[in-house]
């Protein structure tokens, strides 16, 4: 049982060290090494702690295996490149932001339906908000526009079906 723990610990270290690899290759590498350990133990005919330690020692450190994978020439696609996240501009408020708010509030009263749509166009051209915030605004407008329409549709179909009854 001690031997099983050694193997699991080793494979856990390998999986942790393999974070720069893509998920498919990480799974494959861990499976390959697991199979190697199984083959080596089967070959030696014993599964005691000393045999297991020797097998793992011959494999080398998990970090060394991953280093060979990452550092090998021709593995450009696998190098641990840090993804650069684009942070929204947040350049403060300009004309687009003011226009967006105006059309979404006052515009909605004076230009029903069209006003909020123009407001949304300004929202998407604005720099001050993140893409997520823009989607939230779009969703709110969509719901507020669609709900009354659905309500009206419900009234008309309801009344028309009522009329069709004998």
């Amino acid at each position, binding site marked *: 049982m001690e031997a099983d723990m050694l193997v699991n610990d080793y494979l856990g270290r390998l999986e942790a060290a393999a974070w720069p690899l893509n998920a498919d290759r990480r799974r494959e590498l861990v499976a*390959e090494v697991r199979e*190697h350990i199984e083959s080596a133990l089967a070959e030696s005919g014993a599964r005691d702690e000393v045999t297991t330690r020797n097998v793992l020692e*011959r494999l080398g450190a998990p970090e060394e295996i991953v280093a060979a994978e990452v550092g090998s020439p021709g593995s450009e696609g696998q190098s641990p490149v840090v993804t650069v996240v684009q942070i929204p501009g947040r350049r403060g408020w300009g004309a687009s932001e003011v226009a967006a708010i105006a059309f979404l509030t006052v515009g909605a009263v004076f230009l029903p339906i069209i006003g909020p749509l123009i407001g949304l166009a300004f929202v998407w051209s604005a720099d001050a908000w993140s893409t997520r915030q823009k989607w939230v605004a779009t969703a709110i407008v969509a719901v507020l526009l669609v709900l009354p329409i659905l309500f009206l549709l419900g009234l008309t179909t309801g009344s028309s079906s009522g009329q069709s009854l004998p």
Partner: protein
Amino acid sequence: MVPGETRNPLTELRRGVLEYCVLAVVRRRESYAFDIVRELTDAGELLTSEGTIYPLLSRLRRDRLVTTTWRESGSGPPRRYYRITAEGKRALEGFAAEWRRFRRAVDAMLAAGPRGGSDGG
């Protein structure tokens, strides 16, 4: 694993020639990873950390120097067998020629011995 191993000049050399030794093994006959490891370790100190064979085999697959076939094994899960491709054979032959020249040059330098510097003027 051995401390100070990174300073051993043979470590870098071994790393460089290992893939061609693997190609030579799978040129002789189709083998699975554990077989290849055995051949390399039996031949001498070609592979110090057996686990590093898997990144190497993965790269040879990606570079299409070897192809693989899954086969049922008598015991345990199916095994992935490696075989050299035409491209792999070309790479291996190219390396073998370069290696012979390189080995002759190094041998010649080492055989020259400590002659030159001692007969000062």
